[in-house]
């Protein structure tokens, strides 16, 4: 059984859970993220004093919003250039009239979409978008975000403060873009969430347990976005993709902490519930008939996860999905994965031929994924000497420690095999 939470921990939990919803609402009313956050911080302090005595209110979010508005009025009154702020004050006083105190959660307008789109505005640096999204929507503390990105808290705090200032001064509107711009900006939002997920994914490889669980945070953000934009198939696609990746969490790393390739993972360690959920969401997305890169990647993941073993994987299906993905996302990674799938769906010989074609188009002799696939194909073709040479090249080229160890183990396995 889990130890019971202290009241303080419970309050902290509530604040984190509701942070994005509350903050987005206050920003809508006061117009500035920093100011809104300061007021919310005041309100949280008040809650820590007030709630232990009077109990947790029916709707903590509504309570915090009301108190934040009151704190906003206090702050404007106290400010030096009070005179010039009279207009703000009368507006804020109006807000105070519409007290949320007795209302339920459902009465609070949800403004989180505005906040997400603002935080992921392309006029902000990528890392800033990530940090700001985690802070404002995810409710993570600056120190937690700093730790997640191996930055010092002061550096991270500076980054976040500067970003909030830029949003205000540069004239970034607090809106959800419409028309053509919506799709473009939505791609940016999804990219931010996926980056958070991948950051967490690689952190779990290096066993940095002190890091905040960025995987959980990314999934949570995607779930929020999915509830706010249930008709956007790529939002569903990204959610499904992350859930499906995450389903393999405990099979990806062995007892020694080493990465295990999909082929050799113990499939009984895969999380069935997550696979079911991923399957369901990806089907829902596909039914909207507007395919996109996240949906396709989710489909590929789903095909893998629904196979009882590597050998019975539906390779023709995976090959077709990669071909489709390549049309939308013509990158080397996708092309190499496609060729990998071809090697199982068709034959090693055909795959080798496709690799040669790729090499003719562009010099791939320094691309680690390319070399690893080629090594694998040579091995399956009984050309062990060639395979070894490529693995040695690959190991020299990568500076990722985990990948290095991964290739090394492959090499050891092979050289002993070769000498046998």
């Amino acid at each position, binding site marked *: 059984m889990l130890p019971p939470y202290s009241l303080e921990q419970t309050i902290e939990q509530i604040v984190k859970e509701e942070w994005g919803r509350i903050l987005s609402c206050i920003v809508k009313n006061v117009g500035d993220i920093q100011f809104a956050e300061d007021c919310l911080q005041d309100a949280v302090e008040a809650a820590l004093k007030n709630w232990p005595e009077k109990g947790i209110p029916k709707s903590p979010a509504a309570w915090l919003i009301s108190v934040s508005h009151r704190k906003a009025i206090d702050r404007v009154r106290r400010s030096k*250039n009070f005179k010039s702020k009279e207009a703000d004050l009368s507006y804020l006083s109006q807000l105070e009239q519409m007290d949320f105190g007795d209302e339920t959660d459902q009465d609070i307008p949800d403004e989180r979409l505005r906040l997400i789109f603002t935080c992921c505005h392309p006029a902000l640096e990528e890392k800033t978008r990530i940090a700001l999204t985690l802070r404002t929507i995810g409710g993570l503390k600056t120190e937690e975000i700093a730790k997640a990105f191996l930055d010092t808290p002061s550096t991270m705090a500076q980054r976040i403060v500067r970003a909030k200032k830029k949003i205000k001064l540069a004239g970034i*509107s607090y809106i959800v873009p419409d028309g053509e711009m919506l799709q473009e900006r939505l791609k940016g939002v999804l990219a931010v969430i996926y980056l958070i997920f991948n950051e967490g994914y690689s952190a779990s490889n290096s066993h940095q347990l002190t890091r905040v669980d960025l995987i959980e945070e990314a999934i949570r953000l995607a779930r929020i976005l999915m509830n706010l934009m249930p008709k956007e198939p790529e939002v569903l696609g990204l959610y499904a993709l992350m859930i499906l990746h995450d389903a393999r969490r405990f099979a990806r790393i062995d007892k020694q902490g080493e990465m295990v390739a999909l082929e050799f993972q113990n499939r009984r360690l895969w999380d069935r519930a997550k696979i079911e959920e991923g399957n369901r969401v990806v089907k829902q997305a596909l039914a909207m008939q507007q395919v996109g890169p996240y949906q396709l990647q989710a489909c590929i993941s789903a095909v893998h996860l629904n196979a009882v073993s590597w050998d019975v994987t539906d390779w023709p299906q995976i090959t077709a999905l990669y071909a489709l993905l390549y049309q939308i996302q013509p990158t080397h990674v996708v092309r190499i994965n496609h060729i990998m799938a071809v090697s199982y769906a068709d034959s090693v010989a055909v795959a080798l031929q496709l690799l040669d074609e790729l090499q003719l188009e562009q010099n791939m002799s320094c691309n680690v994924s390319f070399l690893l696939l080629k090594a694998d194909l040579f091995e399956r073709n009984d050309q062990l000497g060639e395979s070894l040479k490529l693995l040695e090249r690959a190991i020299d080229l990568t500076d990722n420690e985990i990948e290095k160890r991964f290739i090394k183990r492959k090499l050891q396995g092979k050289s002993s095999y070769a000498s046998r």
Partner: protein
Amino acid sequence: MQFLCLIYGTEGKDPQPGTEEFGAYMQEYETFSALCEQNGVLVNANALEPVATASTVTMENGKPEIMDGPFAETKEQLGGYYLLDCKDLDEALEYAAKIPTAKYGRVEVRPIMVFE
């Protein structure tokens, strides 16, 4: 709010006077300026003489020190500007992207500071 769209380019990289493309290039500028005016966002716009005409002055010990040329010898030079009055950054960026030189150089968009 007002935004200054600073047009940077490498001199000689965009269509030059006397070439076939130059006329069309200037026409694009005229079209763009007309669009801004028509939509009521144009405050002011100007092109600058080439950077070879630049002079730089600083005050050293109370005396002006004058130098030939721009302050920084960068590859990309300020060639002109548009001062636009837009509702937000997104709108300003949308206009800035339509400035013909954006195809050959870049346009930096900066909000005009408002003193409270």
